[in-house]
């Protein structure tokens, strides 16, 4: 691939929207072309900043009531005026989790296929274990042991269950909502899995103490639509796994390191 072919694909590459062969061609070009990889780094950085800084607005309560009221009014000639409150509540709750269960199902299908295909390869045992754990956490009913958006609930929960105290910063304002924590088993030892959610995507952050912890500059590994970010800080090993865009995962790492 020539530079002229690569440049128009860079944003698609950042967003994980290229086909597998395209994505591979771009990756191998970036590995050898310094001008394109500089451009890629600049674009990735900017997209990470944008995605980290911009949040969805929350519709004001006033708007919610207005919409409800006007719908009632519009439906009035056709609809019975009495609305069964409880059944709507139920369906709303069901609907809230619906996208996540779809995502989980998708992970099961795609992730399961990938895991089966790759089990034979010995490369990157941790990568495989972390991915497997991530996928497992989504398909089962065991995403978290301690469901809480409060770091002062999640952090102390690990006391006595694990030989270190994991970092659990609150990152809501940066768009990463704390969902809870889970005890997991990776790399032959118990580890802390802190679960965050970015829009509809789940991020599992695994951490454990390691004297020879991973690289200071995060290393990104892509596997069939999943992204892993691996870094080490203060004798602690961190692995973040998710299906968010790579830029979001980088934004997560930056937010995490700044907040902890």
């Amino acid at each position, binding site marked *: 691939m020539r530079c002229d072919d690569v440049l128009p694909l860079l944003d698609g590459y950042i967003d994980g929207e290229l086909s597998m062969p395209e994505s591979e061609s771009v990756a191998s070009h970036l590995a050898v072309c310094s001008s394109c990889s500089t451009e890629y780094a600049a674009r990735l950085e900017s997209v990470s900043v944008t995605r980290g800084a*911009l949040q969805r*607005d929350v519709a004001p309560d006033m*708007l919610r009531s207005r919409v409800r009221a006007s719908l009632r009014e519009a439906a009035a000639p056709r609809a019975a005026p009495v609305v069964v409150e409880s059944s709507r509540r139920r369906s709303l709750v069901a609907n809230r989790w619906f996208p996540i269960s779809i995502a989980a199902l998708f992970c099961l299908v795609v992730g399961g296929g990938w895991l089966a295909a790759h089990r034979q390869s010995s490369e990157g045992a941790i990568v495989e274990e972390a991915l497997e754990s991530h996928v497992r956490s989504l398909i089962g009913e065991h995403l978290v042991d301690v469901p809480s958006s409060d770091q002062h609930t999640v952090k102390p929960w690990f006391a006595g269950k694990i030989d270190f105290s994991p970092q659990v910063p609150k990152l809501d304002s940066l768009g990463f909502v704390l969902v809870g924590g889970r005890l997991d088993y990776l790399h032959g030892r118990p580890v802390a899995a802190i679960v965050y959610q970015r829009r509809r995507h789940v991020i599992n952050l695994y951490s454990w103490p390691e004297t020879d912890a991973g690289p200071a500059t995060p290393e990104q590994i892509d596997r069939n639509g999943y992204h892993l970010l691996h870094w080490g800080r203060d004798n602690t090993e961190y692995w973040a796994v998710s299906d968010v865009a790579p830029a979001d995962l980088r934004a997560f790492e930056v937010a995490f390191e700044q907040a902890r």
Partner: protein
Amino acid sequence: MAATVIGAEAAGGRLEEFEAMVLPFLDDAYTLARHLTRHEFDAQDVVQEASLRAWRHFDGFRGGNPRVWLLTIVRHTAYTWLSRASHRATEALDDVGDDVIAAAAQADDALAVSEQRAVVSRALAQLPRESREIVVLRDIEDLSYQEIARVLGVPIGTVMSRLARARQRLRTILSGSER
């Protein structure tokens, strides 16, 4: 009489179904409307109108992703709304007045938890509408290229090139504001 009651109940159930399916995405709708109109109250009017439009067309909704469907309607409504509001002729031409940018920045400043957020919001508000909406759909609403293509009614290739151009513009503004 009995038939009327049954009919009314069925329609009531239909409204319930609509609300359960569509109202969870009111935040998404409001976000897009706010960035398109760059005005919080205008955005509320647009969302209310779009919700009614969606309800009227709900019988024609044949499955698919309700969020994408709602955002498509919000976008159409916002465009119609903006072109109708003749006193905002400059807005319709995407010729952004300083006061509009200042107002957007002020609104964002009030909400901003970080300096960076205010800076990026202000930069986004300065983009032409075509660029702004695609950045909002991708980087805030987190839609896939396929979904964006559906909302905008353009091919995926156009989504990719338009998004690259929009981000380039944003990057230029942001690098200017650093200096």
